[in-house]
């Protein structure tokens, strides 16, 4: 039997969940024994194989049209989708901007910040993606496995990956279930 293929991507997050994934240290070698890591934001190949992967992992919430595209692409190309970390699961820190209007947040970010000079301008190049409300991944595409945590502990990530690599669905409980 061929090794299951894994691809990951990050969206509106801090990349901390991928850092936590690297924190599994040498155990990543055990994972590689079991799976074929294809595309990740921290390796050369950035997009999941067009031919599909077995497991897709998404970090971060969805806060613009580009993220929407990433989420849809991953969902289309993977069999099981994992939402990794509080931003992907709940919306997380980026979702705090949902308590304000989009206009307020953009104005704050590009015009009103103390470090912005008087020429502050909200970017409006038509090439750019369009910002939206911040959403958890499951608000945009169906998610199969939720791994909350800010970030999820390396042990939790290792557990999730090794279970999935061996064809089991991980169940998070006790010290592995942390929203932080």
């Amino acid at each position, binding site marked *: 039997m061929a090794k299951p293929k894994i691809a990951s991507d990050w969206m509106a997050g801090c990349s901390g969940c991928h850092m936590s994934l690297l924190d599994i240290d040498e155990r990543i070698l055990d994972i590689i024994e079991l799976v074929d890591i294809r595309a990740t934001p921290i390796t050369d190949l950035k997009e999941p194989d067009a031919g599909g992967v077995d497991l897709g992992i998404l970090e971060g919430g969805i806060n613009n049209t580009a993220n929407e595209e990433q989420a849809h692409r991953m969902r289309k190309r993977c069999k099981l989708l994992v*939402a990794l970390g*509080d931003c992907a*699961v*709940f*919306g*997380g*820190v980026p*979702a*705090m901007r*949902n*308590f*304000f209007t989009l206009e307020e947040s953009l104005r704050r970010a590009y015009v009103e910040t103390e470090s912005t000079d008087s020429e502050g301008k909200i970017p409006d190049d038509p090439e750019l993606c369009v910002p939206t409300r911040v*959403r*958890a991944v*499951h*608000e945009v595409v169906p*998610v199969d496995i*939720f*791994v*909350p945590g*800010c970030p999820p502990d390396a042990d939790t990530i290792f557990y999730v990956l090794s279970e999935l690599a061996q064809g089991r669905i991980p*169940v*998070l*409980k006790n010290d592995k*279930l*942390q*929203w*932080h």
Partner: protein
Amino acid sequence: MVSITIDNKKIEVPEGTTVLRAAEMAGIHIPTLCDHPHLTPYGGCRLCLVEVEGARTLQPSCTLPVSNNMVVKTDTPKTKDARKFVLTMIFSERNHFCPYCQVSGGDCELQNAAYAEGMTHWPIQPNYVPFEVDASHPYFILENNRCILCRRCVRACGELIGNFTLGIEERGAKSYLIADLGTPLGESTCVSCGSCLQVCPTGALIDRWSAYQGKEKEVEHHKTICVGCSIGCGIDVLTRDNRLVRIEGDWDSPVNEGVICKVGRFLPMTEERMRVLTPMVRKNGALKAATWEEAMAVVEQKVKEASQQKNLAAVISTRLPVEAISLFKQIFADNLQAAPVTTFEQGETTAASLKLAGQLGTSYEGKLNAIHQADCIISFGADMLSNHQVAGFFVKRLLPKKVNLITINKSDDPFADFANCSLKPLKGSYLDVINGITAALLKLGYIIDPAKATKSSEELQKASLNTSIPTEQFLKTAHLIASSENPFVILGDSLNTNGNPDLLSALYHFCHSINAVTDSKKNLIGLKGSANNLTASLLGLDQKLTLQQNTVTYLAIGDEEVSEQRIKTLEKSSFMIVQASYHSKLTANADVVLPTENWLECKGTYINLDGTIQTAQASLVPPDEVKSNQAILEMIASALNIPINSEWKSVIIERPSPVLLNSD
């Protein structure tokens, strides 16, 4: 007793027990959020839904009383689904993002409940409707965005404190917690007892000191007592790495049953005085750090000299434990013949109450918690808003139960606004008030005494004239008292008895005449003063503090903040030895300063206002050079070859006391 079967476990419980409590008795855990064992059931969160055989829908176990042969199931797919749904709805309403909340990671009952149900995500995302944060209060912050509307705080504020400051504004999902009619908390009627913080299940009420300072799993708990006043409330001191994190009321303490006031909860957190860290001796006009040996040598010489020349005076704080006060008395009063040997408090009213107990040949005051059964409170010269606040909470929580309150105070009584009758007599006319009420009781025929009845109108007029209280007020008061079955009398610490028991004696006989004190009950309590006020009086340390010229004074201040008035008196000292925890005007003027423990570091015994003997445990370890009050006094005794006895009980028990002494 009724019989109930919960999860196939059959138990017998008293009638009226709720299903939730019955389950607890059977050792079955039902998750809850709005329930709190010290508050009346509310049935607001629906987390405790259970299946009851024969009932059409799931039932909230916290408000459902058991009925005979009831069959309950707590852990079925239906109840589990319901719990998850309830939590889903709660999470969807506010900002419950955990990573930046100080209670996340074990201290949040909401998060714990979600973990217990194995929730990995929120099936319904939040609606992102923001609420305002109220940070106007000096001691805590109200973060409505984290509130789950369980109303524990609202109930604690009303039921336990009787303050009714907190309430809910708006309806449904728009509901939010407010103070008064929407006043910022800092400007509201809040008395800063902090009970709302202690019962909040989430991070909606955050105190300014302990947030992020240590979670439950990181702190140590020290069950001890507060030495803020003579009530001696049980407290739970939370520390981490020998640092004070938070103080909470001890729900298990029979004295206060979990309730504490600002003095116990917040004031210790705001302590900003500088600590005395080494002994100090004045050399060439300036206070210089010294070794214990140097400092004690000066103390030994000065005290010995002053004792021989009969110009030694000694004053101790009533915040210190019995052990220290007893040693202090043995050394300075019994052996060195210092005069006066007293406390900063003087304790005139308590001194008078001891004399009265001596005259009566028995104790005559009762227990504070008898107040919970009272149907009429008569408060004489008390300010339960500033001092003895917990007694004030006990009074105020009775008011919604239609208990009458009568305040009698020569000053403005802070409880006058809630009183059914508030008498403000002229200064020095408390005795006339008692005569006036008695005359009114006679006139209205509530007390039958034909000999005195004829004179009652005349007496009433006279009392009215002397007190400037209209006769109608006396008659109204008499009517309120006479129509109650279980009146309770509180004597404040501002009765101004000048050590003379006459007023107390009159009050005592008055209590008899209105059936507050009978052969079977003693509904009378004097609030006394500081923590060990009664102890000091029992040891005879309650004289007036006056100093002759050229007096050498030994002051065991501990951590007390001595009043300006006393400081002024003490400035007359020619030589001052101060045993203190913190720098103050007194230490600045002192000739020798000896560093000592503060209340959180000191272990010792306290006798509270109703004679309950309690032990304070040390919650913190003092700095290196700091010694306990007892240890310093023992050093002095040994340097001066004074025999001391650490046994104090036998001395105290022999003295007449207004209250019966007993350890719990």
